[in-house]
């Protein structure tokens, strides 16, 4: 774990640094993805920026609304401090909604745009996993396996690094599927990468030590991942069966 970095008198949180660098790399990946998909990179880049900013602001506002009783007597707390206090589900929902409506306003086609966004989304997810590893969030179960890492005084599965590998695998699949001679129908690279990522997260979350549990002790993330994987496969099937070969 490396939750902070000391540079002279300054103490910098590593997770925040990773998020910043990850956002920059993700936007670069979106630009590359747009060019590979044959789209206008400026439009897709602007859509990604819109989604990112809306997501961050939305995550903060959602958290504030959910805990309004704590903020109503000190409204300054809404904008400071910024190191904690975000709702990931709220941010994802608001960010995705903003990006969707921006795309509609700019008349961007859905499936080619998703193909272009896929590498950026995967890079962002990998950055979150790396930030979690450095900060100690989302730690794994205790293990004696030789690749276990020391976190919180015991050797644990490096679940965050497993997630990183899953993201990398999905990125490789996207690169393979988006090659000009293998692209197939619009949306195929995005759906293949999503299915691989979902299946990977379904597998590795079993080793999380502080998993979000739902009824019966089931891992909530695994249920979501299975749903995403199955939905991706269903959409792949439908689009594959209806697709005309691209000349």
């Amino acid at each position, binding site marked *: 774990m490396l*939750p*902070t970095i000391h540079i002279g008198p300054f*103490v910098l*949180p590593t997770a925040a640094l990773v998020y910043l660098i990850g956002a920059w790399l993700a936007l670069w990946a979106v630009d590359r993805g747009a060019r590979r998909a044959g789209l206008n990179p400026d439009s897709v880049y602007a859509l990604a920026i819109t989604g990112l900013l809306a997501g961050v602001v939305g995550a903060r506002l959602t*958290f*504030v609304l*959910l*805990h309004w*009783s*704590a*903020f109503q*007597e*000190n409204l300054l*707390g809404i904008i*400071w*401090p910024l*190191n*904690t*206090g975000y709702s990931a589900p709220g941010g994802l929902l608001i960010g995705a909604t903003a990006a969707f409506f921006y795309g509609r306003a700019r008349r961007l086609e859905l499936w080619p745009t998703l193909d272009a966004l896929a590498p950026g989304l995967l890079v962002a997810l990998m950055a979150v996993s790396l930030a979690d590893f450095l900060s*100690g969030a989302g*730690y794994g179960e*205790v293990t004696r396996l030789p690749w276990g890492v020391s976190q*919180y*005084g*015991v050797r644990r599965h490096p679940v965050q690094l497993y997630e990183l590998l899953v993201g990398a695998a999905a990125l490789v699949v996207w690169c393979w599927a988006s090659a000009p001679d293998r692209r197939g129908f619009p949306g195929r690279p995005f759906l293949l990468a999503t299915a691989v990522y979902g*299946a990977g997260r*379904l*597998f590795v*979350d*079993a*080793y999380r*030590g*502080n*998993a979000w*549990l739902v009824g*019966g*002790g*089931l*891992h909530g993330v*695994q*249920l979501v991942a*299975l749903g995403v*994987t*199955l939905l991706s*496969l*269903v959409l*792949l*099937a439908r689009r*594959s*069966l209806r697709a005309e070969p691209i000349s």
Partner: protein
Amino acid sequence: MQRERLEWVALILLTALVGGGWIYLSRDAEAARQPVTLEEAPYVGHTAPDFTLTTLQGETIALADLRGRPVVLNFWATWCPPCRIEMPYFQRAGEKYADRVAILGVNQAETADIVADFAYKNNLTYPLLLDEDLTVNHRYAVLNLPTTIFIDAEGVVREVIVGTINQGVLEDRIEKLLDS
């Protein structure tokens, strides 16, 4: 086309079956949700190291005596600007969750006079513990200020937050401790 359709259906059903089976196999049994070790250590999942410190009023507080209700330990100092930002939030939380949660401020290496003057000027009435020789700060491996440690009613560390904590996060974490 029909063959391809059947292949897709088989793949989807197989994924659902294998995925569902894996989810069931990897579910957390109740016993497995207990901390793996009860060794004292200032780390998540471990028993919080015991200590005994004195408040400004001369009252002795031992962590072990607080077993049975959640405890929030906030390590701070008067010279730490981020600490000063968040201390009113702990004051408010101490009033809101009185008797249900123990909110304790553990000072880092300052004298009673300095701490008392700061508490008076900032209307802080929740217990501020003096740790002039840094025994408890070292025991909890506090490297940066502020550091806030959330301990459940069974004395197990549930979360450590380094850096300023806003009032929403503080109350969110306290509510989680009360729910667990």
